[in-house]
C-alpha cells in the first residue's frame, strides 16, 4: 500500500482500497493473491465489519485510514490559550485491515502517529503510519505475515521475537529530541520529531535489544524516566531508569513468579508500584493460540501488588488486593509514614480485553463490566492493602504530569459509557479527595478520547483532548479551562476527516 495520499478520505471498504492501490500503481501487488482471497473475506470478519459500517455509526472509529493524512490551516473556534500553543502527539491502532482480511483485535492495528500543531487560531494535523518492520513487510506482501497479539492468523508465521509483531501503536514518549512510539510487548520505535519518519527501534543497551519497553513510562518531576517490560515466558520483569538526557542509567530483569500481563504502573517519589492482575501466560497455550489467548485468567491469585524501592531494586514488598483487572493507574504518592495512595481504573475481569476490543473489529459490541475509579491505600511495611471502588466510570486517567509521584487531587478521565456502543461520551475532572466530578458531556454521538492536563503557571491550567464526532464524521480537538470543564471548550477545531480511535498522547 502506498501512503503518499495526503488528504485521502478514510474508507476501509475493499473496493476503495483496491481503487486506491490501483491509483498508486500497486495493483500488481494483488496479482499474486488467490482469487478467493480477493473475492471472499476468508473468515467473515471483514464482511461483517463492512456491513456494520453501513448500519452502526460507531464503527467509524475502527476504520482503516487508507494512507497518511494531513491538513493545515484548520480554523479554530475560540482561541487556544498560549500555554496550549504547542504540539499534541497521539498514537493508536490504525491499520485494521490488509489484503481483504481484518484483524481480530483492536490492539493488532499497526500504529499511526497523530500530530496536532496548535497555534492560537489555527490547527494543522498530520497522521502517519509508523513504518515498523512488521508494517513494511506486511504492506509490501499485502497480507498478514505474522500471528499477532490477538489474531492467530492461519498460515502466518509465529512471531520470532516480540519485535517481529511490534505495531508501535499505544503511546508516545518525547525524549532527547526524538519521539518514541511505544508498544508494551517490545522495543520502543524511534520517530523523527519533525518529519515523523520512522528511524528504527530503540536499543537502550546491547543486552536490552528487543526487550519489552512498556507504553506507560513515568516521568518524575526532575525528568527521570522510569519504565518496565514484562518477559511473560521467562517470569521476569525488566526495570528501566533513564536520565533526563535520554541515556539509560540502569536496567535489570527481576524474577516475578507468574508475572502477568501488565499494561501500566505508577511511581511515588520513593517507589515503583505494580498492580498485577491475575492474567498469566501459559506457554503451552502459546503453541496453538495468539499471545493474548495464551493468557489465562487466574482470579485466585488476587490482584498482586509489587512495590519496589527506586534506589535499591532488591528491596521489594508483596501485597495483595481483591482480584480484578486494570489497564491504567492515574498516580501514586506516599506520606511521611510510607503509606502509599494511588488510584486506578478497575474492572471485575478482563472481558474488555478478550471480547469487547475484539468484537468491535467485526462491528459488534458486548457490554462488559465498566472500569470504575478505585482508590487504594498500601502500607508496605505492615503488609496492608485496601481499596475503595468509587461509583465513577472512568478510563484514560491522567493527572497533572508535574505531580507524578506526588500528592495529586484531580484525575482527568473519560466517563459516561452508554449501553448501545463502545466508548465514552463525556470527559471528567474528578476530585479524588471529595469524590466530586466536574464533567463536559460531548453527547452520545461522540467518542470522548483521552484528554490531557496542561499546566499554566499558577492558574488552574487547561484540559486538551480529542473526540470523534459520529454525526459529522470527523475528529474534533477541544481545549477546556481545567476548573470550568462543564462550561465547554474555550477553543475547538474540527479536522476535515475522522481519525481512527486512538489511545494515548503527550503534549510538548
Amino acid at each position, binding site marked *: 500500500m502506498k501512503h503518499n495520499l495526503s488528504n485521502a478520505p478514510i474508507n476501509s471498504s475493499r473496493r476503495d482500497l483496491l481503487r486506491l492501490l490501483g491509483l498508486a500503481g500497486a495493483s500488481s501487488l494483488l496479482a499474486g493473491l488467490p482469487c478467493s482471497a480477493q473475492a471472499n473475506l476468508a473468515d467473515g470478519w471483514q464482511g461483517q465489519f463492512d456491513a456494520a459500517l453501513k448500519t452502526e455509526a460507531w464503527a467509524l472509529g475502527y476504520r482503516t485510514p487508507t494512507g497518511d493524512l494531513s491538513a493545515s490551516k484548520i480554523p479554530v473556534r475560540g482561541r487556544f490559550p498560549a500555554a496550549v500553543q504547542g504540539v499534541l502527539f497521539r498514537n493508536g491502532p490504525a491499520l485494521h485491515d490488509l489484503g481483504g482480511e481484518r484483524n481480530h483485535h483492536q490492539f493488532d492495528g499497526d500504529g499511526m502517529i497523530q500530530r496536532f500543531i496548535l497555534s492560537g487560531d489555527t490547527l494543522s494535523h498530520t497522521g502517519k503510519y509508523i513504518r515498523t518492520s512488521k508494517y513494511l513487510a506486511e504492506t509490501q506482501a499485502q497480507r498478514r505475515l505474522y500471528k499477532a497479539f490477538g489474531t492467530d492468523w492461519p498460515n502466518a508465521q509465529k512471531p520470532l521475537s516480540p519485535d517481529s509483531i511490534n505495531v508501535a501503536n499505544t503511546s508516545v514518549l518525547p525524549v532527547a529530541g526524538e519521539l518514541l512510539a511505544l508498544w508494551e510487548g517490545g522495543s520502543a520505535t524511534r520517530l523523527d520529531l519533525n518529519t515523523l519518519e520512522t528511524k528504527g527501534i530503540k536499543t537502550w543497551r546491547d*543486552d*536490552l535489544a528487543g*526487550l519489552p519497553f512498556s507504553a506507560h513510562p513515568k516521568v518524575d518531576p526532575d525528568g527521570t524516566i522510569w519504565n518496565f517490560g514484562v*518477559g511473560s515466558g*521467562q517470569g521476569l520483569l525488566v526495570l528501566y531508569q533513564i536520565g533526563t538526557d535520554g541515556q539509560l542509567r540502569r536496567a*535489570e530483569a527481576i524474577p516475578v513468579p507468574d508475572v502477568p500481563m501488565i499494561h501500566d504502573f505508577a511511581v511515588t517519589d520513593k517507589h515503583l508500584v505494580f498492580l498485577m492482575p491475575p492474567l498469566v501466560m501459559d506457554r503451552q497455550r502459546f*503453541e496453538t493460540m495468539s499471545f493474548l489467548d495464551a493468557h489465562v485468567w487466574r482470579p485466585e491469585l488476587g490482584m498482586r501488588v509489587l512495590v519496589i524501592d527506586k534506589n535499591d531494586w532488591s528491596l521489594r514488598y508483596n501485597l495483595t488486593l481483591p482480584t480484578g483487572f486494570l489497564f491504567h493507574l492515574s498516580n501514586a504518592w506516599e506520606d511521611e509514614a510510607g503509606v502509599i495512595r494511588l488510584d486506578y481504573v478497575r474492572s471485575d475481569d478482563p472481558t474488555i480485553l478478550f471480547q469487547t476490543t475484539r468484537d468491535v473489529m467485526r462491528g459488534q459490541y458486548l457490554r462488559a463490566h465498566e472500569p470504575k475509579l478505585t482508590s487504594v491505600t498500601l502500607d508496605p511495611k505492615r503488609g496492608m492493602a485496601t481499596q475503595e471502588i468509587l461509583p465513577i466510570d472512568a478510563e484514560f486517567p491522567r493527572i497533572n504530569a508535574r505531580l507524578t509521584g506526588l500528592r495529586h487531587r484531580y484525575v482527568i478521565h473519560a466517563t459516561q459509557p452508554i449501553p448501545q456502543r463502545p466508548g465514552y461520551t463525556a470527559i471528567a475532572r474528578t476530585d479524588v479527595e471529595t469524590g466530586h466530578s466536574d464533567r463536559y458531556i460531548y453527547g452520545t454521538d461522540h467518542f470522548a478520547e483521552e484528554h490531557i492536563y496542561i499546566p499554566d503557571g499558577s492558574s488552574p491550567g487547561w484540559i486538551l483532548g480529542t473526540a470523534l464526532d459520529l454525526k459529522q464524521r470527523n475528529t474534533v480537538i477541544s481545549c477546556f479551562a481545567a476548573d470550568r470543564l462543564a462550561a465547554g471548550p474555550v477553543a475547538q477545531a474540527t479536522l476535515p476527516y475522522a481519525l481512527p480511535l486512538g489511545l494515548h498522547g503527550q503534549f510538548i
Partner: protein
Amino acid sequence: MQATTPVDSNTPNSRFFPPAAQCLAGLMLLGLLATGSAQAVDLNLSIRNLGSDKGTVYVALYDSADSFKSRGKGLAGQYIPVYGSTVTATFRGLQPGRYALSVFHDEHGNGKLDTNLLGLPTEPYGFSRDAVGTMGPPTFDAAAIDLKEDSSIVINLH
C-alpha cells in the same frame, strides 16, 4: 570416527535459545567425519540472511532429540568466517538418518550467541528446515531432515 563435542561452559545460560546452539561456541571440529561405511553421504549447507558480512557463522549438527534439546553434545560442528552475504559448509561422511542443525552468526566475534536480558538472541540464528519455536527453540522433529543421500539445504537466519 564420529566425534562428539563438549559443552562450552562460557556460553550464556539462555532462557530462550536452545542449549543446542549455545554449545556451538565449543564446537571446534571441522566437518570431516571419516567413516568406513559405503553408505556415507554428504550434507551441503547454504546459510543465508546473515546479519552482516563479517564475523563467524557457527553450525552444529545433531542426530537425536536429546542432544538437540539438552545442553548436550552435538554430533559435529563447524565455524566459518564470513566474507560475503552467504556461507556454505559441508558435513561429509554422515550415516543416513535424521539430523537437525542449529546455526548462529557471531557478528560481534566473541565466540557466543549474544542474548538480551530475557535470553532472546540478539544475533542472527536459525535452524534446519527454517524451523521456528514458540518463545524458544523448535523441537528436533520440527527441524529434522531425513538424510538418505547426498543433499543440499538452505538455512535462512533470522
